[in-house]
C-alpha cells in the first residue's frame, strides 16, 4: 500500500500524460464528438414520431444516447494495451524496480487519465451535444453528485477490467486481441450503443449482472433521474460491489501473474 502523497502524484501523472500532446487532445474531442453525434442521431431517428422507448420519453432517449457514450469515453481505458505493451517490450522492468503497488498505481493513474478526459473531452462534447440534440439536464443538484460518484466507480470498474486483461500478457505476452474484444464487448454491454432498457429481455437479464453496465448505463440513469432513493442506492451499490469484486480479482491475479513474468529483452 502506498501513502496518500504518492496516490496523488500518481493521479496527477495520469492527467499529465493526457496533456502531453496538443493534437491528441484535439483529436480526442473531435473523434468523441463524431461518435456521440452519430449515436444520438441514430437514436433520435429511432424515436422520431413515437411516444418513447422502453419507458423513456424521446428526449430522454436522446439524452441517454449522449450521456451513455460520453460516460464510456471517461470510463473505458486502454490500460490493458498499455500494460500489455510494457510486458511485451520489457519496459515493465522499470515499473518493478520502484516501490509501487502496480495494481493501485495503474488504477490511480487511470483515474487521473479519466479526470483529464472528463474535463478536456467529455465536458466540451457534452455541451456541444446538449445544444444540438433534444436534451434534459438533471433538475436537482444532488443528481450531479450521484453522477460524479457513479463516474468514479465506473472508471474504477473500467480500469480494473482492463488491468485483469493486461495481466494475461504476463502469460501470453500479447493482449491486443483480448483488448479489442473487451473494447467491443464494453461498447455493446454497457448500454453505450443500445440502451440497456431497449435490449431484448434475455440479453438484458444477463447484462444487469455484468460489470459493463456500471460503466455507462448507471451514470446515464442517474443523470436522467430515472431512479428513486432506493434505486440510486442500489445502482451505486452494484457498482461499488463490482469495484470491490474486481479489486479482489486483481489482487489474486496479480499475485499469480508476477510468478509467470519473464521480462523480455536485454
Amino acid at each position, binding site marked *: 500500500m*502506498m501513502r496518500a502523497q*504518492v496516490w496523488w*502524484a500518481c493521479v496527477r501523472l495520469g492527467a499529465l*500524460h493526457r496533456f502531453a500532446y496538443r493534437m491528441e487532445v484535439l483529436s480526442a474531442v473531435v473523434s468523441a464528438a463524431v461518435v456521440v453525434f452519430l449515436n444520438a442521431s441514430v437514436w433520435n431517428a429511432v424515436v422520431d414520431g413515437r411516444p418513447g422507448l422502453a419507458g423513456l420519453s424521446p428526449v430522454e432517449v436522446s439524452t441517454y444516447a449522449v450521456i451513455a457514450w460520453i460516460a464510456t469515453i471517461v470510463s473505458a481505458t486502454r490500460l490493458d494495451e498499455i500494460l500489455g505493451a510494457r510486458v511485451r517490450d520489457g519496459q515493465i522492468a522499470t515499473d518493478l524496480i520502484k*516501490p*509501487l503497488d502496480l495494481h493501485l498505481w495503474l488504477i490511480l493513474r487511470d483515474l487521473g487519465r479519466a479526470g483529464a478526459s472528463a474535463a478536456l473531452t467529455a465536458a466540451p462534447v457534452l455541451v456541444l451535444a446538449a445544444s444540438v440534440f433534444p436534451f434534459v439536464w438533471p433538475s436537482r443538484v444532488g443528481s450531479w453528485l450521484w453522477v460524479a460518484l457513479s463516474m468514479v466507480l465506473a472508471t474504477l470498474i473500467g480500469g480494473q477490467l482492463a488491468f485483469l486483461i493486461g495481466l494475461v500478457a504476463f502469460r501470453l505476452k500479447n493482449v491486443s486481441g483480448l483488448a479489442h474484444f473487451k473494447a467491443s464487448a464494453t461498447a455493446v454491454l454497457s448500454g453505450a450503443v443500445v440502451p440497456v432498457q431497449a435490449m431484448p429481455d434475455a440479453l438484458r437479464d444477463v447484462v444487469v449482472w455484468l460489470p459493463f453496465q456500471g460503466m455507462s448505463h448507471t451514470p446515464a440513469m442517474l443523470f436522467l433521474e430515472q431512479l428513486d432513493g432506493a434505486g440510486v442506492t442500489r445502482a451505486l451499490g452494484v457498482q461499488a460491489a463490482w469495484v470491490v469484486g474486481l479489486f479482489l480479482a486483481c489482487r489474486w491475479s496479480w499475485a499469480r501473474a508476477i510468478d509467470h*513474468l519473464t*521480462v523480455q*529483452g*536485454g
Partner: protein
Amino acid sequence: MTALVEVTDLVRTFQVRPRRRGVVGALRDLVSGRSVEVAALSGVSLTVGAGEIVGYIGPNGAGKSTTIKCVTGILKPTSGTVRVCGLDPWKERSAHVRNIGVVFGQRTQLWWDLAVVEALDLLAAVFEVPPDLYRSRLGALQELLDLQPLLRTPVRELSLGQRVRCDLAAALLHAPRVVLLDEPTIGLDVAVKHKIRAFVRDLAARDGVAVLLTTHDLGDVESLCHRVVLVDRGAAVFEGTLDALRARLGGRRRLVVTTRGPIPAVARDQLAARLGVVVGELAPDRVEITFAAGQSASPIVAAALEVLGATVDDLSLAEPSIEEVVAAFYAEQRS
C-alpha cells in the same frame, strides 16, 4: 568488507517454444507448439561489497541480463539464493527496491512524456524521499551530471547521453546502497562515457555504494572495476582482479625499442637468443620484444640497452589490452 550483494548458485530456466519456419510452420506452431526448457543461468555465484565496483562481463547471451533481473527482483530464480542488503529481492521486493538503484542503458525508467524534473519529483514521492533531502540530493546530482539545462525537457526529447545521465540521477535520488548498472555506457560518446565513469567511481569511493556493472565496453571495466566476474553460457567462469585474469591467461607484454638508424639483423638475433623471447621487426629502426605477462620487464630493458647501446632512442612498454585478454578467454572457453 560486508557483502551487500550475495548471489549463490543462481539457476534460472526458461520455457522456450522453438518456432518452425515459414507460414506453414507458423500455423503448425499455433496448434502444436512444444516448449523446451532452456537454462539461462546454471549456478552463478558472486558477491559485491560496500564501496566495490564489480564488472560482470560475458559474451552476448551469457546470462548477464538474467542475473541482473534476478538481483533487481523482477525475475524469480528457479533455484539458488539472492540476497541484497540481507533481503530476498523477489519475496521482499518493495523493501528491496528502496536499497537499490538501477540503470538500464537500453531503456529509461523515467516517464516518456514528462519533463525530467517532473519525473524526478514523482520518483522522489514514490521513494518517499523527504523534501529537504530531495532538494539537496537533486542539487548535488544536477551539478555532477550537468542536468541543469535538461530539467525542463520532456524525456522523449533527450539525446541518449542526456537520457542516461538523467536515468543515473533518477536511480540515485533515494540514496541506494547498491547500484546495478546494465550496460550504462552503451552507445555513448567518449566524453559522456568519461563523465559517467568518473561519477560511478566517486559513488563507490565516496559513498561506499556497491556497484555491479554489466558492459561490453571493456574500457568501463578497465577504468572502474576492482574485480570482474566472467560469465559464459550461464556459469561464472572466472572471478578475480583484472591482473589475475591477465596472468591466468598468460597475456603478452610488449617492449617496443626505437633506435636512431636501422637495427642490424644480427643485433635482433642476438637479443632473441640472449633473452629466449620473440623479437619482431616493426620498422627498420624499430623492434618489438614480446614476453609473458608474468615476466618482469627490467632484465629485458637492460638487455636491449646493452645490445643496441647508445643508438636506442626510445622505449615503450605495452600491457596486454583487456580486449585481447577477454577475447582469448572466450576463445579458450569455447575450445
